[in-house]
């Protein structure tokens, strides 16, 4: 049996078909290098009127507003909103904790499929997509391009990595923030099992650089509820530390802890206008992606 690679390894034809009509809109102006459907900070040629400005010699006479000239005998140039394409950077966590999965799918596998779906939707919108994979450090970084072959390469890169080692999210995010100069859409897919204040600072770094940021906080159902497993000796997948516990007795307290943990991200993200989403790997991927994109499109109007 031939091993599937690239997008075929993560998305079935049916899933790709269902995702084909969806788009991922940026909520802010972005800086692309191609014409596209996203607003650009520049004035350029588009159908969307922006404002008038006084004519200066050298301006293209075809941009004169003749109607204004006729009425006022003064020369004004009509300016239009420039539209450009969107550059999206997918930042995927491959730390050891992402290798956990109480069901058939690990969080890392789910994160890869989510990245594939987002990338597919982006490419369908003729936008560009790039990738950054990190664990303790940035393990791989690929620039943004708008071709399906590039998407395939990105996904092959994801496929090559296995979840392992410790997490060091904040330095990796800071590095990505330094590398991406132009306004883009940053999509972070991680379980964020790190120091929340540091991670929040890194996210603030993105926002300072006017990037639109989406955080997919990827968590396994067991991590969310801790209600279906029996007592056991638990082993930390990153540190190897062990702990004997009865989850049934701890479930209430555990849920409080995990809720506090989520709140440590949700609250700052809301303040920084970062789109923070909790992704339950127990839910079907296409359902989640479609629901998310539909809601984002609705809110972007």
């Amino acid at each position, binding site marked *: 049996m031939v091993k599937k690679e690239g997008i075929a390894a993560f998305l079935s034809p049916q899933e790709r078909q269902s995702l084909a009509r969806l788009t991922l809109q940026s909520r802010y102006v972005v800086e692309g290098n191609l014409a596209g459907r996203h607003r650009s900070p520049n004035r350029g040629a588009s159908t969307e009127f922006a404002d008038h400005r006084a004519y200066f010699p050298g301006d293209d006479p075809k941009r004169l507003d003749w109607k204004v000239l006729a009425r006022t005998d003064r020369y004004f140039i009509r300016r239009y909103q420039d539209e450009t394409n969107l550059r999206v950077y997918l930042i995927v966590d491959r730390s050891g904790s992402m290798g*956990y999965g109480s069901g058939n799918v690990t969080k890392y596998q789910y994160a890869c499929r989510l990245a594939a779906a987002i990338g597919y939707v982006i490419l369908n919108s003729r936008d560009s997509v790039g990738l950054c994979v990190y664990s303790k450090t940035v393990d791989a970084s690929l620039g943004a391009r708008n071709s399906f072959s590039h998407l395939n390469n990105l996904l092959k890169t994801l496929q090559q990595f296995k979840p392992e080692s410790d997490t060091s999210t904040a330095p990796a995010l800071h590095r990505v923030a330094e590398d991406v100069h132009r306004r883009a859409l940053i999509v972070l897919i991680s379980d964020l*099992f790190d120091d929340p204040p540091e991670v929040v600072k890194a996210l603030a770094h993105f926002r300072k650089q006017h990037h639109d940021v989406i955080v997919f906080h990827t968590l396994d*159902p067991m991590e969310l509820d801790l209600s279906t497993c*029996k007592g056991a000796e638990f*082993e*930390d997948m990153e540190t190897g530390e062990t702990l004997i516990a009865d989850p049934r007795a701890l479930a209430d307290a555990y849920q*409080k802890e995990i809720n506090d943990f989520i709140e440590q991200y*949700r609250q700052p993200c809301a303040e920084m206008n970062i789109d923070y989403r909790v992704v339950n790997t127990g839910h079907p991927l296409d359902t989640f992606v479609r629901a998310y994109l*539909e809601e984002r499109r609705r809110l972007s109007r």
Partner: protein
Amino acid sequence: MFAAAAAIIPLILHLMQKRRTVRMPFSTLRFLKAAQKRSSNRIRMENFLLWLLRTLLMIAIAAAFAVPVIRTVNLGRLMGQAHRDVVIIMDVSYSMGYETGQRRVWESTRQTALAILRGLQKGDRASVILAGDRPTTLIEKPSADLAMVQTLIESLAPRPESSHLDEALPEALNALKESGNREREIYVLTDGQALPWAGFDSTNRADHTVAGPWDPARVDKDIAFFALLAGSRSPENCRPVDVTLSPSLLMTNTLATLNARIARTGPASDLAVTLFIDNAEVGRRTPLLDANGIQTVAFPLPPLTPGIHAARVTTPADGLAVDDAFHLLIRIREQLPTLCVGDEQDTLFLMTALTAGQQGKAGGVATLNADALKETSLRDYSSIFLVNALPLAGQTMLDLEQYVKNGGTLTLFPGDNATPAAYRDWSILPAKPDSVTEVPQGGRVRPLRLLLTQDPLFSGFALPPGATPTLAIRRALHWPNLETNSVMVIEAGSDLPFLASRYFGKGRVLLCAVSADRRWSTLPMTSFFLPMLHQIVQFGAGLAKEPLYVWTTPTMILSDSLPDLTENDQILMPDGRLLTVRPVRQGSDILMEAEGVEEPGIYTLSRNGDPASPVLAVNIERKESALEPIEGSALGALTGLPGFRVALDGEDLQQQINEYRRGRPLTETLFWLALLLAIAEGWLANRICRNRSTLVATVKVQESGRIRSPASP
């Protein structure tokens, strides 16, 4: 109790569980550690409680299978190893014969008594006391011959008596006085009616208590008391309790009515009450009887021939059959034999009055001189009038005294023949006259006043409304005071005695203050004279010597009702058996006494091969028929013995005996405890492992991953 070691099973399981822990990779332990830190105290407490419950559960189950017992009393004794003396008090009242369907009170009581005996060990001793009208101790001291006691109990049967347990219980205590260190038990086997226990209440105590007042303080605390209340808790019974004839004296062609009082125990009902005379049904009534009520049913009597007729009033058969029939003898008289003693001149007015309406015939009235009295059989006459007949010979006076003692009615009219001294030596007179008073001219007219209108002498006596009999008295006997058992029946005016009466033996003596002719007063000329004489005659004929019925009794003097009974006569009981009759000496008299008149029904006399004639109607006294169950819980307070163990059937009693002797088995209690512990353990364990709401639901994570918290839009 080795199984109690199972109590460590939970601990072992706990320890084994720790060794067999499965290693499970998890994304991060930071939250688990924090959660464990947050709830460690609670978890420790819950685990401790679970361990405690499971350990107790195992102990309870192990202990239940070990069938432990708790000795309810006398913990210091060796678990019932001491020999015991038991006294069985058996209620033998006739209400023990109550039967409804499968419930046979006497049989179940007897079987219970036998079961108590079977439960005794070798060396144990038993005694039996019968609780009847008087307690009967069958075995004075507890006997080790249990087979004999068993045979004795098997031969017992209810008696036509009431029972008084307040007298039987002291007898039982007496029987156990010399039991030493033996364990002592008293069993009261009764049908559970309130009446036998009523004597324990000081307000109801019978006067004839022989054992003295019941004092629970004198009861040894070591004696165990058991009571079996075997009777029905809602008994039903209907019975005739009394009959009367109106008028009480029946002559040929007398229109009479028989009144039967019917009592009912149980709910209201209409029941057929039937009157049989000479075994033929002569009347039937269906009165509506109130619940626990009593009602009088009247039967007009048909014309009956002179003689004695056996009759009975019956109610339908019920649980207590022995009281469904009430027997009586109806005596129809052709004439009332009366004797007038005195000269023809003295008795002229008397004879005229007594034979009034008989067209000059003497009827049953005879007259003779005082001299001929000693040769006359006085018992042939129901009333004797002495008219100016004193003084009499000594033997004649003794005969008359015996006549009165046996139930005769003697009436004395004074006259000029006797001085007051002639009266003084006669001890049966109601008064001893001291003089003959000449009444002054102005005070001779006297109204007669009936002082005792309710006296049986005047039963049925009626004067015209407003009529006051008045007579003129010239001379009268005077007596200063009355003798013992004497009353003044009629006074003339406010200061002159006229007629005094004295009950003597079973008879009555009447002494009139004036003569029966016109010499002392105008009495014979008054309208009061004739009815007064007829009242005396009728009273004399029906006075108590021939009752309608008698109650059952162990012994009965028959000479009262059958004065001519001899040793050669045979009295047959209702079931055909011969009644034991023997002569007994009572003072200077030889009387015939019957033994065991305890079979209700008609007793007949067979004499010299003549056809048997009814002589006695015997009934059971209906005290026990008012079946009123007593609550077992009331016995403790009633008897002053709080430890009275009460059972409603033999099985229950046997269980209580076992509990007392061997202790109360705790198996059932322990299993209940184990069940409660299991429920508590299940509840607590389930509470720990219960399905909690998930975090996704709690924080409201939408399908798109958005968290809809209160702060979010």
